[in-house]
C-alpha cells in the first residue's frame, strides 16, 4: 500500500530529502522531495497556514507500518500527515 507522508515544518530545507535514509534503506521509499516556501492557489493568491515543506511517498504493508516508520524519523517540531494513496 502506498502512503503519502506530508511534512509541515518550519525547519530549514533540505528536510524531507535529508531524513529519508532509513526509509530508503528499508526499501520502502518511492519518492521524496523538499518544497520551497511561497505556496499559491490556482488564482495565484498566496495561501496561508503551516506550509508543506516536503513529502515522502512510501510503499508499506499497512497503515500501522507507515505510522511506525514515520515515527522513527527524528523530526522535531513538525506536523506529519499520512495519507493512503488510492488505487484507481
Amino acid at each position, binding site marked *: 500500500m502506498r502512503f503519502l507522508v506530508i511534512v509541515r515544518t518550519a525547519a530549514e530545507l533540505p528536510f524531507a530529502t535529508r531524513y529519508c535514509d532509513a526509509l530508503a534503506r528499508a526499501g520502502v521509499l518511492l519518492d521524496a522531495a523538499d518544497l520551497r516556501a511561497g505556496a499559491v492557489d490556482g488564482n495565484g493568491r498566496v495561501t496561508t497556514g503551516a506550509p508543506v515543506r516536503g513529502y515522502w*511517498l512510501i510503499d508499506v504493508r499497512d497503515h500501522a*507500518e507507515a505510522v511506525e516508520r514515520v515515527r522513527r524519523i527524528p523530526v522535531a517540531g513538525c506536523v506529519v500527515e499520512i495519507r493512503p494513496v488510492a488505487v484507481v
Partner: protein
Amino acid sequence: MGATTSVHRTIDAVWRMESAKVIAALARYVRDVGLAEEMAQDALVAALEQWPVEGVPNNPGAWLTTTAKRRAVDQIRRRENFNRKVEEIGRGVRESSPDASEGVEDEIGDDLLSLMFTACHPVLGTEARVALTLKMLGGLKTEEIARAFLVSDTAVAQRIVRAKKALAEAGVPFEVPEGPELAARLASVLEVIYLIFNEGYSATRGDHWMRPELCAEALRLGRVLAELAPKEAEVHGLVALMEIQASRSQARTAPDGTPVLLLEQDRARWDWLLVGRGLAALERAEALNQPPGPYYVQAALAACHARARRPEDTDWRRIAALYEVLARLSPSPVVELNRAVALSMAYGPAAGLALVDEIAGAKALQGYHLLPSVRGDFLLKLGRTDEARAEFEKAAGLTRNERERTLLLDRAAACLT
C-alpha cells in the same frame, strides 16, 4: 479492547520492520541462524505479552534484540558447551543499550547481508530458500507464506525447520562471501528474490490476495539489497527488471481477467513512477561498467518497451541485439524464439523465419506451442498462407489453454479466406 488491537497491529508492523535486523544481529553472536530465529520468535512472544500492558517501548527494535539476546544466553547456559559463547553474548547485551541503534547502521547492514546470503545458501533447495528468505528477511508469518504458495501451514513450517537444520549440518558460516565465491552466492540471492517476484507476478495457480504482497516483498528485498551491495551491477539490474515489470501490473489484465499482451496494453495505465525508478536503477547498473549479466540484459529489454510511448515507437533493432546478448549469457531456445520475433519486427518476417527454422529442431521446443504459432505468424506475413494455416493448427493442438486454442484456430481459419 480497541487499544489492545491497535497495539497488536503495531507489534505486527514492528515485527515486519525489525525481525530481520534482530535475527541478523543475533546470528552474528550465536553463529547459528536457526537458533537466532527461534530466539527472535521468543522475543516476539515476550513483546506480545508485555507491550499491551506496559506500552510499546521507544526503540522496539533494540528491545526485541536485547530480549532475544538474553534468551539466547539462557538457552546456551542450559546447554553444555557454553563458556566462550556466553561471554561473547553477555558482552553484546551490555554493549547494545536500547539507544545505541544509531551509528551502527553499517554493522547492521553487514549482518543483514550475511543473513540474506545464509538464507539463500545453495545447499538449500529452491523452496527452502524462498521460505526461509520470506520468513527471516521479509518478516512474513508461516501462515502468510503458506497462503501465498497455496500449501499448508505445516508444509511451510517443516520446510523451514528442515532448512535451518540443513544449514547447521552443512556448517554454513554466517558471513558475506568473498572472492570468487561471491558471484555464485549473489546469483543465488538474486534468483530467490526474482522467484518470489514471479510467484506473485505470474499467478499461475489461482490469484490470491497474497500475490501482490509477494511482488511488493520481492521489490522491497531487491531495493534493500541494492542499498547494501551498491557496487553489484546485477543487483541494480534485477531491481530495474522488477520495477519495470511491476509498472505494468494494472495494464496486463483486462477487467474480465484475460491477459493483455505487452504491445496491446494501454500504456497510460502503466505506473510511470515505477518505470522511472526502473530506468534509474538501470542507469546505476550501467554506471558501474561491469560486463552485462542476465538480469541487466532482461531489464534493458524491458526498458526498450518502457521507453516507447507507443508500441510503434519500439526500438526492435536494439531488442534483437539484446536478445542476442542474452542468448549468449543464458542460452535457451525460448530466448532464441523471442529473438526471432524481434528480428522479424526489426528486419522483416524472413529474418525471423530463418532463425526459427534454425532452432526448430531444439529438444526444449518440441511440444512448445509458441514455436509453430510464431512460425505461422511469419509465414502469414510472407503470404505463405497454406503453410501458415498448418502451423496455427499445429499450435492449437499443442496448447493447453482453452482461450489460446480458440484464438489459434481462428487464425488458422482466417488463412482460408
